[in-house]
């Protein structure tokens, strides 16, 4: 049984450690905020200029001046701070943010990522993604293992325009948890419950490295 989006988010939440400053991208990464383990103190950074992002407001308490990078109405938590866009990317560039979690269209076996443009089709722009991937010391990608056409998104080389090179460390998909090896290659760490290593191999176009028994992903 492959993982749902919520379960991918839940599995990634286990990577978050006490005292971390974390930037969450749009999509599955946003869901990670719902699963941060109890007893762990984490500060969420929103790159439009906020540290200490809280949950959505209650109805009637929305504030047009208080949004996150996905333009959603949000709240602040005790201890939060507001700053301008230059400082926001200053703290990202200076590696003050411990962990960045973002989505991707493609990841290559040497850690390149493509997630901002489909030539001739989609021209939404990179937003803060290029700054984040170029500077973050730890990046986890949350994404589907294969696209809607059934093609692998874990490739020997990205086919879409790149967002960053040689920067991704870990990937969590509906099928597996994988590390990018320093010399290249997707190292299989965990598989979704009931999903075989062989199935993951068939779904991974890039070089898959399998060593020993591969445990099942757990989200509890």
């Amino acid at each position, binding site marked *: 049984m492959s993982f749902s989006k919520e379960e991918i988010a839940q599995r990634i939440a286990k990577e978050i450690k006490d005292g971390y400053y974390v930037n969450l991208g749009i999509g599955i990464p946003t869901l990670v905020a719902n699963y941060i383990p109890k007893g762990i103190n984490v500060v969420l950074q929103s790159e*439009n200029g906020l540290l200490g992002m809280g949950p959505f407001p209650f109805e009637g308490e929305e504030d047009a001046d208080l949004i996150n990078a996905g333009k959603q109405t949000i709240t602040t938590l005790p201890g939060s701070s*507001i700053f301008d*866009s230059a400082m926001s990317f200053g703290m*990202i560039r200076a590696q003050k943010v411990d962990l960045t979690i973002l989505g991707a269209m493609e990841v290559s076996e040497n850690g*390149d990522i493509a997630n901002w443009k489909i030539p001739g089709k989609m021209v939404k722009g990179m937003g803060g993604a290029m*700054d984040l991937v*170029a500077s973050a010391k730890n990046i986890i990608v949350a994404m589907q293992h294969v696209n809607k056409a059934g093609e692998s998104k874990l490739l020997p080389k990205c086919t879409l325009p790149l967002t960053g090179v040689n920067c991704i460390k870990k990937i969590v998909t509906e099928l597996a948890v994988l590390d990018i090896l320093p010399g290249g290659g997707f190292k299989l760490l965990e598989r979704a419950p009931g999903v075989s290593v062989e199935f993951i191999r068939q779904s991974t176009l890039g070089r898959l490295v399998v060593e020993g028994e591969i445990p099942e992903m757990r989200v509890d």
Partner: protein
Amino acid sequence: MINKVVSGAEEAIKDISDGVTLMLGGFGLCGIPENCITALVDKKVKNLTCISNNAGVDDFGIGLMLKQRQVKKMISSYVGENAEFERQLLSGELEVDLIPQGTLATRCLAAGYGMPAIFTPAGVGTEVAQGKEVRNFDGKDYLLEYAFDADFAIVKAWKGDTAGNLIFRSTSRNFNPVMAMAGKITIAEVEELVEAGALDPDHIHTPGIYVHRIFQGKDYEKRIEQRTIRKAQ
């Protein structure tokens, strides 16, 4: 104290003419200079180069200027909320320079700090790096990016005083302070304009030296793009 107050948006933008380069503050629709955008739409100036993180939505913000074909070139980081923009771009009617958000902010900062250029790792190895100088510092590659050169910067603040000092509210701060520093002429519209001396100097985000014209705006719509709420317990 130098008095920077003008009567309103129309007077503030009176010398903005065809072909100039404008910076417009805001992130999405949050903290955008609504009054000045309306005045620019009414004035119908065209062939503008606009530097702004986003391009508004179809019927609000910079989207209103795009609809009238007032914009020749857009310099932004993310434009995904505007279908008319995407259409003009794919059809080649609009020139667009998409650049990383941190690069956009820091090129504003450099202009306001009197620095000609910055080095940033954002975009190294991607099509953003094409034609740009690369320098290696301590084993890591960085792109040379130039400070922006904008004729006007138009920003929105929460409070301002007659000396041009500005205070922003919540995340509507975003690009406004760095753009305010970067314009050759900076225009600030504020929700509440007070006399010089009424604001605590310790609380000022943008010193008045960067602001050339200021006025109290009116009828702010402050449209919300994504109204997200949680259920009451």
